[in-house]
């Protein structure tokens, strides 16, 4: 039993290093940007020289880089993300108040994309005509910008038919259009991967055996091929986290939704370093945890992976 535990410990350590690396990246990236960070923080409204110097001192930008770095990391390790420059609110508060709507949106979109992909792939695998139509649509879905899809949905379903609200989005009604928008591209990618893998599975000898046993086509597709096809999707889950979070920035502003995406967009535009750092750390943690979960899942789905894996 020692090996799986050691494996897990090592993976956790790696995950921690990913988060630490992300913190470093954001610290140095911010300092590499051109211009005076204090001026950027204060915006373009001609602050008085006294105010500029006062803020420079408060944010320790008048200290040597090493001191700034030490201060930054020291606070990070105590879990203190500092206060947002723009919002005058602790970063922890800003993020925790906006995390839930984004998690809701991401989860709903992921489930929607997965269900769509499973349905379409099961229906179209190894069926040339349906496949051709569907794969064109998938390509369109995967390559249409979320912004555009969102505007089309709004124009038709909100402005014209008035089925869904155009803004806000608390409750189920407000979640529908944003979730569809965010899911569309992902569903396209998922379907392509899933069908490819299912078609490969349908040519395997075990499928022939199943057919020989007299299993029906539906049973074969659902029980054997689909289950096989889902394995690469597990790998894609890591990518999906990034895609969902990146997409949330666009979708949340098109639909005027609360969430981390809007916070991120505002913080990057206003160079709100504490908030940007907080968001980067939260997404790094999410990324690391999902990837860890994916690895664990692999070992459960297919125990052979254990032996050849890096763990």
């Amino acid at each position: 039993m020692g090996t799986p535990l050691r494996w897990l410990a090592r993976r956790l350590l790696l995950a921690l290093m990913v988060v630490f690396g992300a913190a470093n990246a954001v610290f140095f990236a911010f300092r590499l940007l051109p211009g005076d960070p204090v001026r950027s923080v204060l915006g373009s409204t001609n602050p008085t020289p006294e105010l500029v110097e006062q803020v420079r001192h408060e944010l320790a930008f008048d200290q040597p880089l090493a001191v700034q770095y030490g201060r930054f990391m020291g606070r990070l390790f105590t879990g203190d993300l500092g206060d947002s420059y723009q919002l005058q609110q602790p970063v922890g508060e800003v993020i925790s108040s906006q995390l839930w709507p984004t998690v809701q949106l991401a989860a709903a979109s992921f489930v929607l994309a997965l269900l769509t992909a499973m349905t379409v792939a099961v229906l179209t695998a190894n069926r040339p005509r349906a496949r051709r139509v569907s794969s064109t649509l998938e390509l369109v879905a995967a390559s249409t910008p979320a912004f555009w899809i969102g505007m089309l949905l709004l124009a038709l379903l909100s402005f014209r038919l008035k089925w869904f609200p155009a803004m806000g989005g608390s409750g189920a009604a407000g979640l529908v259009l944003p979730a569809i928008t965010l899911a569309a591209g992902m569903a396209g990618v998922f379907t392509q991967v899933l069908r490819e893998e299912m078609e490969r599975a349908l040519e395997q000898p075990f499928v022939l055996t199943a057919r020989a046993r007299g299993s029906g086509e539906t049973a074969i597709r659902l029980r054997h091929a689909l289950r096989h096809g889902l394995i690469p999707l597990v790998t894609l889950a890591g990518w999906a986290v990034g895609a969902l979070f990146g997409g949330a920035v666009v979708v949340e502003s098109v639909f005027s939704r609360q969430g981390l995406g809007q916070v991120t967009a505002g913080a990057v535009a206003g160079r709100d370093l504490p908030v940007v750092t907080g968001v980067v750390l939260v997404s790094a943690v999410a990324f690391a945890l999902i990837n860890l979960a994916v690895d664990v899942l692999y070992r459960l789905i297919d125990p052979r992976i254990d032996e050849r894996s890096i763990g």
Partner: protein
Amino acid sequence: MRYPTGVRRAVALALALGCVATGCGSGAAGGGRDGRITYAVDSQPDCMDPQISPYDITAALSRNVFDSLVTMDARGQIGPWLATSWTISGDGRTYTFRLREGVRFHDGTPFTATAVKATLDHTVAPETKSQYAAGLISMYESATVVDDHTVKVRLSRPYTPLLQVLSTATFGIQSPAALRTNRGKTCLHPVGSGPFVFAGWARNRRIDLDRNPDYAWAPKGAGHRGPAHVAGLTVEFIPESASRFGALSSGQIDIAAAVPPSHISRLRQADGFRFLRAPQPGAPYTLLLNPYRAPLDDRRVRQALQHAVRLDDLVKALYSGQYDRAWSVLTPATAAYDAKAEGSWPYDAETAARLLDSAGWTGRDEAGYRTKDGKRLTLHWPYMNGLMRDQRALVGQGIQAEAKRAGIEIRFTALEPGAYLEKAIGRDADILAFSWNRAEPDIMRSYFASDQTAKQGGSNAFGVKNAQLDGWLHEASATRDRERRDALYAKAQALVNSEALALPVYAPATLLGAAERVRGVTFDVQAYPRFYDARLEE
């Protein structure tokens, strides 16, 4: 035929879910909003403390939450509000205000002289980190509470625009008790005495303002007395203009701010909608020209640029006639605007060509640009996207194309905020452009007085140092003789044009789209909407 219960239950559930999802088709349109107005704006305030935040949106919303000491009417006349009367000492440095009695803040505390002192002290305190307000009262020395309803404000130098400054939403009077208990958190807890009470802020989504039931101190000029007509104001943040407009036209909101000028004609043709417009005072969107760096250090080149651009056509094409083409560095809605500027520097390609010839830019390179000693006539115009509302990037491209016809190359470059500010503060540019909403011609001093450079917190981007301008603008800010003031500002406006220190482009206006049933929305002198008199008609 009877369906099995399972199926019936499923159908009922589906219908119920459908209703949740669609509001059964009724939720979106009209009614059922409990007499509240839903107002969609394009940006969210960073902070709701008007003395901290420099942004228009904060001032615009604050106008409904806070009252000011005095009020300014459309003709620029100052009238009483929270102050019933005032006297100004002979040296112009002491203002004594008599304050209104019976006014209460939203937290229930009474309004007294302490509140005026606390608000002004709060503005200039270093820990407030005021980004705009403190700069407006840099001459503020101290305030003294004489008795409960008398306060003396002392200045370090005479400053005639003080009353205008104090009339703005930026100087809304805050509850001293709230300032004390919310220290460091005033951004999230604005407590004033205005017709609407700040009732909550769902970040990135909306701000709720509720009617103040005790309100009885509206300034003269308001449409009624007593509390506001509507139960409240729901301010939704919808940054996408297409979404905002769609939400208005489908009845999901009552008023939309920042309607794109190109959508106005559609709004006018549609049934059930109205369009409200208020021209903004202050400095129009203006290109400041760098007179201390070649090639614009030659006045003839600056003048050539004035005559080379068909601004009338450009502004009309881009803004569908909703914004006026500007002729002066003050907009027509500003007191002391000099209408004589109109037509004084018309489009004239021949004059532009002659001026460039005489300045020595006689050669032409293969791209068609003018050259002198083998060097191309090139102007650098950096900008940052954050400042480019109203399709200003298109304005820039239009001017660029016009200049090209005259043989002038304009490099119109988008920069990151940091890089932009570095260039702007370092004066590493030939053109910098922005606008400034302020109902006071003193804005010209910020643009052209030599002690108002960007480093000093002013808007004199290129550090123009002109003894005449300095003299006129300083005298105008100190004199109380209205005619003298107007004459000084007229001279200053004429000089800026004749020296071609700037190229004013268009005078912005506040454009609101409203459902027909919304009545009585008014504008203050800064063209910020006021909802005190607003009502909903059924």
